[in-house]
Every structure is written in C-alpha cells, then in structure tokens.
C-alpha cells in the first residue's frame, strides 16, 4: 500500500516534492505501527489534497486538516517555530480517518470534538513524540481516564471506524462503576 500511496502523491501537483517526502515518511511510520488500518481513504484524499496558508484567526494550531474541503491549512507564524513532524502527523491522522466533515470518533454535530483531539494527540505522541506545553494536554488526560472506564479497544475501534455512538454508549454503560 505504501508504494500505491507514493504513486498517488507523485500525481498530486498541488504539493511540493519536499512535502511529499515528509508526508510519505509519516505515513510509513503510521503504517509500520498500525498495520491493520486500511489506508484506502487516505490514498483517495491524497489525490486532491491541497496545502494552503490560512489566517491565524481561523487556525489556532500550526496546521489543521479540513476533511470537508480536503485541505491542509497552515498557520505560517506558528508552523515555522513548531515541531512540524508532530503537527503534520496529527493532521495526517485526520486524513486517514476522515469522513465527510469530521474525523476519528467525532461526528457531524461535533459531539466528541475534545475527546477526539485528545485521542488523536495520544496516537501522535506515540508515533512521533510529544511537544512541550502541548495545547491538548487536558484532553489527553481526560481521554486516558475515559479509556480506563470504557476500554482501550472500544476507543481504538471507534476512532478508526468513525463510530461516536459506541463511545457515548460505553460511557453511559460504565457510569457509576
């Protein structure tokens, strides 16, 4: 699959060669650690992915992936001084699990936006290391605690299958225990 993705990246004229190389490196890291996750969705999105600069008033982090428009938005001021590998991996996880206008175990109504960011950061930290003064520290702590209540497998399956309902259901079932 990595070879397929490499070919796909090469066809995308919106992305520079340097960025293609960076993305491929991160995708390889992900694939080596999550061999059971299908990358077909990612492959499809890479065909038309656009990377563009966005206003600092709209993008508060170094970069952010918009699943609806399939754009990777860069806050240039923050991006130039950040751990780019970390934030690109965070965005890449959004591309891998993207569905319509959300990703991971979030949904159209943004019901689980905070937990979703926490879980995305946990995976990002495991793959490429944490950053100092991580903006999502509070979400990471809460996601870790909730995974103890509902089970790590539940969280993992929900994230890679865009299943917000199973998270909420599991939280309700575990309440009071």
């Amino acid at each position, binding site marked *: 699959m990595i070879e397929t993705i490499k070919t796909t990246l090469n066809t995308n004229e919106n992305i520079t060669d340097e960025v293609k190389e960076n993305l491929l490196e991160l995708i390889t890291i992900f694939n080596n650690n999550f061999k059971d996750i299908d990358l077909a969705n990612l492959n499809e999105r890479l065909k038309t992915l656009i990377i563009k600069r966005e206003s600092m008033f709209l993008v*508060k982090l170094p970069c952010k992936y918009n699943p609806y428009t399939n754009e990777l938005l860069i806050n240039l001021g923050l991006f130039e001084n950040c751990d780019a590998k970390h934030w690109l991996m965070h965005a890449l996880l959004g591309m891998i699990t993207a569905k319509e206008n959300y990703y991971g175990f979030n949904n159209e109504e*943004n*019901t*689980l*936006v*905070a*937990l979703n*960011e926490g879980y995305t950061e946990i995976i990002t930290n495991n793959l490429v290391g944490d950053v100092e*003064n991580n*903006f999502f*520290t*509070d*979400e990471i*702590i*809460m996601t*870790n*605690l*909730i995974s*103890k*209540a509902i089970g790590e497998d539940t969280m993992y399956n929900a994230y890679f299958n865009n299943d917000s309902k199973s998270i*909420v259901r599991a*939280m*309700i079932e*575990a*309440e*009071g*225990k």
Partner: protein
Amino acid sequence: MEKIQKFIDDLNNDLENRKRGLPTNPFEKQKSFARLYPSVAAKHTEYFCLNENYYPENTRNTIDVQNIEVARMEIEEIKNANTYKQDMSMQKAA
C-alpha cells in the same frame, strides 16, 4: 445519560474556551470524572494529573494550586468511598 452528556459538553466547552484564550479549570473535569467513574478513581489514581508542575511555569498561579488541592481531596474521598464499598461487598460475599 444526562450526566454523561453534560460531562462531554463541559469538555468541549473547555477546549473551545482555551482556543479563545479564556481561563479553564481542568481539575473540575477530573472531579466530575471521578464522580461518574469512582472505581476508575480508586484503581487508577495515577492517571489523574493533580500536580501543579503539569502547567507551564509561567502560567501557574494560586488559583491553580487551590483547584488542585480541592480536586485531590475530593478524588481521595471518592476513592476511599469506593474502596469501602468494595470491601463491604467482599465481606458480604464471604
């Protein structure tokens, strides 16, 4: 269900407020979690981050230290209550 929904909404609101640069109290959320899931509070106390050092040094203030202390006491109470409840269940079973 309502308590869970409120808990989730509070987490989302905190994130939104932090994006806007507004103050938040994450220790309140950890207390809420402990009330909803007391056995996790009892078994996995180490996962609660109740150390002022987890805040960047230049943002630590007296309010955070007070909030941490209140959260620590409440979570300890919940943990002790849950441990007592489990001990009583085991005694009855015996």
